[in-house]
């Protein structure tokens, strides 16, 4: 297991086959630099593994948002040591309060509910909390991402026609390996980008000055609007994404696996054959 992030003396870990995102979500914990989504390559209904070691402090059940016709359950699983707890969502627990859990051990199964949109894969939402602040959506401690996640592998100044090799494709989304690094240019610096073009914001790994312009493959993604201690928020420009000529909802940059996720305009989206090549075009709207 590799270090993913830490806060309040608590360390979160990830396997090298998992992908993670601090910013590909509209929810407030991500906007406050205090949440990370972890995708373990499993589908809904499959086993979820702990990113943290500690004792299961508390398990709580809630109803999730619903557009009518009943509501699906959501859970908070709080695992930790001393005064800090990992607050894990989107997993139906198989562990019990008081149980000792180690990193990588199963803690339940991935669930879907009203906190998910159709393009979102099975994954857990994780924050670090003080024991006195567990219920509200705000109150997460600022996460410090592991140095390995912030390392970049270069940036080509010359814009290229983007092409993606399909690695995995479902009715929810398609993951491609792009012929361009998942890096952006901020002023004269290069850094990792994380987030989704269809949201009003994305994030950078690293603290960058307010107003700095962020470029990906020659396209202006937006400007830095908030500088945290270890990460920054970018106000996204409105962007349009086309995949093989079809307008998509957007694309997500991820961390961990060097891949990009294409979000179809509706459910079910097109399913592509593995290793097929897709043209990806990103344009500024208007």
């Amino acid at each position, binding site marked *: 297991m590799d270090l993913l992030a830490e806060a309040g003396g608590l360390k979160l870990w990830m396997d090298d086959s998992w992908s993670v995102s601090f910013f590909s979500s509209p929810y407030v914990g991500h906007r406050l630099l205090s949440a990370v989504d972890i995708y373990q390559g499993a589908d809904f209904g499959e086993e979820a593994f702990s990113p943290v070691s500690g004792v299961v402090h508390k398990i709580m059940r809630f*109803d999730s*948002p619903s557009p009518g016709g009943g509501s699906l359950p959501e859970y908070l699983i709080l695992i930790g040591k001393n005064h800090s707890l990992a607050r894990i969502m989107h997993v139906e627990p198989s562990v019990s309060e008081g149980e000792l859990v180690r990193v990588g051990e199963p803690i339940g199964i991935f669930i879907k*509910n*009203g906190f998910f949109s*159709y393009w979102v894969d099975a994954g857990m939402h994780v924050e670090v909390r003080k024991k006195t602040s567990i219920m509200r959506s705000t109150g997460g401690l600022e996460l410090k991402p592991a140095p390995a996640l912030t390392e970049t592998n270069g940036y080509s100044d010359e814009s290229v026609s983007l092409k993606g090799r399909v690695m995995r494709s479902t009715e929810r989304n398609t993951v491609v390996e792009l012929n361009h690094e998942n890096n952006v240019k901020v002023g004269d610096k290069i850094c990792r980008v994380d987030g989704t073009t269809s949201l009003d914001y994305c994030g950078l790994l690293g603290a960058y000055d307010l107003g700095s312009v962020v470029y990906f493959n020659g396209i202006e993604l937006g400007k830095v609007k908030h500088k945290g201690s270890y990460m920054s928020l970018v106000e996204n420009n409105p962007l349009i994404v086309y995949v093989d000529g079809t307008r998509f909802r957007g694309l997500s940059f991820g961390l961990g696996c060097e891949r990009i996720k294409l979000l179809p305009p509706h459910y079910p989206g097109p399913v592509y054959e593995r290793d097929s090549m897709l043209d990806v075009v990103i344009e500024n709207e208007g």
Partner: protein
Amino acid sequence: MKVDEFMFPNELKYMKGHMWVSLEGKKALLGLTSLGASLSKEIVHIDLPLEDEVFEALEPLASFETIKSVTEVNSPFRCRVLKTNQLLLDKPSLLNKDPYARGWIAQIEALDEIPQDELMNVGEAVKYYKQILSAERDKYKGIYE
């Protein structure tokens, strides 16, 4: 009137953002619609404004939280806060359980003539929220199947 299972009382006005407004002269009571309450299940906290606080039109005057989301409550017009529902501080779940009665959020007073452009009557609201509900259900496709 109803949008599917969600009630929209005829006598109220409505704003975009799932809020209802009950007008009486220059005074108004604000609250969350039943559709809004369903899209924010299990509200666990609310921040209320102070009495006499003044807000511009569409400025956030309160906010509430579920375990994962924060929603702002915008002022429908330039106003002064007369009273807030202190019951919600201990029982924010009233916003979900009784959104049109015990779950009211604030009583406000308009500081100018009440502009009608941000307020929908029930017929307009039902038409608008039918579209919103349809978009929400599109977003959730594949989740409830």
